[in-house]
Every structure is written in C-alpha cells, then in structure tokens.
C-alpha cells in the first residue's frame, strides 16, 4: 500500500502539486494529471484502481491510464516521494 512519507511536504498550486522532499532538500512539480495520480496513490490505491477512478476524468482508455499511473508511481517510489508499506 503506497503513501506519502512524512518527509514529503505537499503543496497545491492551482490544480498542480509541488512535492518538497525534506530528506534531499529538492522539490518536484506534478502537472494536473500527475497530481491526481499522486493523490490517489498516496491513499494506497494501486494503478488499476487509480485508472478506474480517473477514467471519467481523463480523456484516455483505462489501460493507458493504468500504464501511465504505474509508470509515475514507480518513479515516485524510486524518488522516495511515495513509500510502499507492502500491506
């Protein structure tokens, strides 16, 4: 189950997000689509569920959304902006 670690401060700017990592002192910007995926992933949603949630919002077929979500979640996990508790 994925979530945002306490070391990450999330700031909303319009419909986008800035993710500020206290461990590394760096910050990242997520566009509106990335922000929605991050918000759902930080609630523990897996890419399949994210795709189902966002199918109505995004103008793309669910398999494509799921692929994009999985790719972004993997990058966020690698950067330490999400952690996976494995539950």
């Amino acid at each position, binding site marked *: 189950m994925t979530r945002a670690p306490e070391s990450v*401060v999330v700031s*909303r700017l*319009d419909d986008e*997000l*800035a993710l500020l*990592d206290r461990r590394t*002192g760096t910050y990242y*910007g997520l566009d509106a689509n990335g922000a929605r995926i991050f918000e759902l992933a930080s609630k523990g949603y897996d890419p399949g569920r994210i795709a189902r949630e966002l199918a109505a919002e995004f103008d793309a077929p669910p398999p494509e959304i799921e692929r994009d979500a999985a790719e972004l979640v993997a990058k966020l996990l690698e950067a330490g902006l999400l952690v996976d508790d494995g539950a």
Partner: protein
Amino acid sequence: MPAYLAFGRRFETELTLPWPPAARLADALPPVRVSRVDLADAVALPFALGAVRYGKVNGSLVVDVPWAARFEIADQSSIRYTLAADADGRAAAEYFSGLVAGFWLRTVAEAVLHGSAVEGPGGAWIIVGASGSGKSSGAAELARRGHALMCDDSVPLAAGPTVLPGVAMSRLGADGQDGAAGSDGADKVAVPPSAARHEPCRLAGIVRLAAVDADRPELRPARGAARLALVAPFLQLLEGVDDRIMTLAKLAGMLPSVPVYALDRPLADDTRAECADLVERLMEAPDLEEER
C-alpha cells in the same frame, strides 16, 4: 535613546545606524530593543559566512563578527550585543544594519526573497531576478513614477501573504550618495524617503525579471507548480537557520492567491521604461495577461 525606522519597526539602540530616524509617528510601531551588554564568553558557533560565525545558542540566534561585535537575537523585539575588544560602535553599526538585520528578519518573516518591492494600487509587487537583471533599477523607475518603494535587495514575506517593509534608504538612497546603486551595479536612481512605505502591505503579485537574448520585453504568466519554480531560486536561505523545504512550503502556500509572471527583457538595451510600463499594467489589472 536614538530610534530608527526599518522593517516597519522602531529600532531603539545606541548604535548609530544608517537608517532613517524614527519620527514621532513611529511611536506606535513595535519596538526592537538593541542593547549593549556584556554577553557571556563566546561558545563555538557551527556555521560561517566568511569570517563571521553564527548559530543557535539556548534558543537565541548568535552572530559573531570577531572584529566588530557579537550579537544575540533573542526574539523579534530583543537583540543584545557585546562590542569586540578595541572596537568602537561603528563597525558594529555597519554589520548590524546589514548582515545582522538579515538574520533578525527570520524572526518576523516566513520567507525572504532576493528582490525589490513597490506598492501598486492593489498591493505590493515584488520583482525578483538574478544579479544584473535590472530589478533594482526597475523598482527605482516605478518609485520615480510615484509607487512607494517597500524593499530593495531583501523582501520579507509574512502570512497573508503580506510584504513587510524594508529599509528604503539603505540602497536606493535619499540623497543618491549612500549606496544608491544595487549590489549588481544597477543605475542609480534616488528615491526620497517620503516615497517609501513603512507598513506591511498585501502581496499583489510577483514578477521574475531576466535579461535574455530577445528583441523586446516579453511578459508571460506562470501557472501551477511553475510559479514555485520561477520564484524559489530567489529565496534567501541561511544554512542552519532556514529549513529549505519548510521555507519552500511556506512560499508555495502563499502563491495560489498571487499572480506570478516571467518578464524577459533584452540583454543589451535599457528597457526599464518599457518593463515598468508592463509592471504598471499588471498593477492595474493583475489577471489581464492570464485572461488572454
């Protein structure tokens, strides 16, 4: 005791500061007492700015300028200092009005930007930019047109968001003699102290000015996270004092309600009048460019 007007406060001190004297009108401003005392023996301070050392000791921020004085900033209203051996107060006053005041700003500001601020009809506009971008001369041009100058060089931001006033005479001087140029060598434009504002002011917008290879000035609105990316490089951060990420988060928290623009001006030409025209247009209609 002499008193000086700076940062919207009344600084009471025996040091002779290069700041405007606080007139009677300033009696209502919050006081900052800068008292000469015999501080306890120096302790090792962990951080350095050249030969100046600083750090937190028992909750106070201590700044040690070995050839001038050691300053102890207890809180936003109380500063104590001990003169260095054989030092008179002149060096202490010089360092207090510049470096140490910058440390003190951290007790009243959520974040400090490297830039200038002028007051427009709807609030304060901040111009940030790299050295040589023309922000000081741009702000001076706006001041010449009648906009109150709030800050030059350092712009303190507080919750609201609001811009706290700086020291208008410090660099854009009243008489054009005392460091009237920006530190980046910008042209000198004298600003009378009467044109300066001494009270906090709502933050109305931010313009990031840059000198680029272009034919004419170009103004672009920034949206979303790009706002933070545009402004964040101009945060003034002190190692060991400012938490970079928390300061970024505070800045990010201020930006959703504030229009942010990138203004690119030609490298070689003197376009301060055109740039000032564009900023004045934003002052009148901050969302004008975003509606296009």
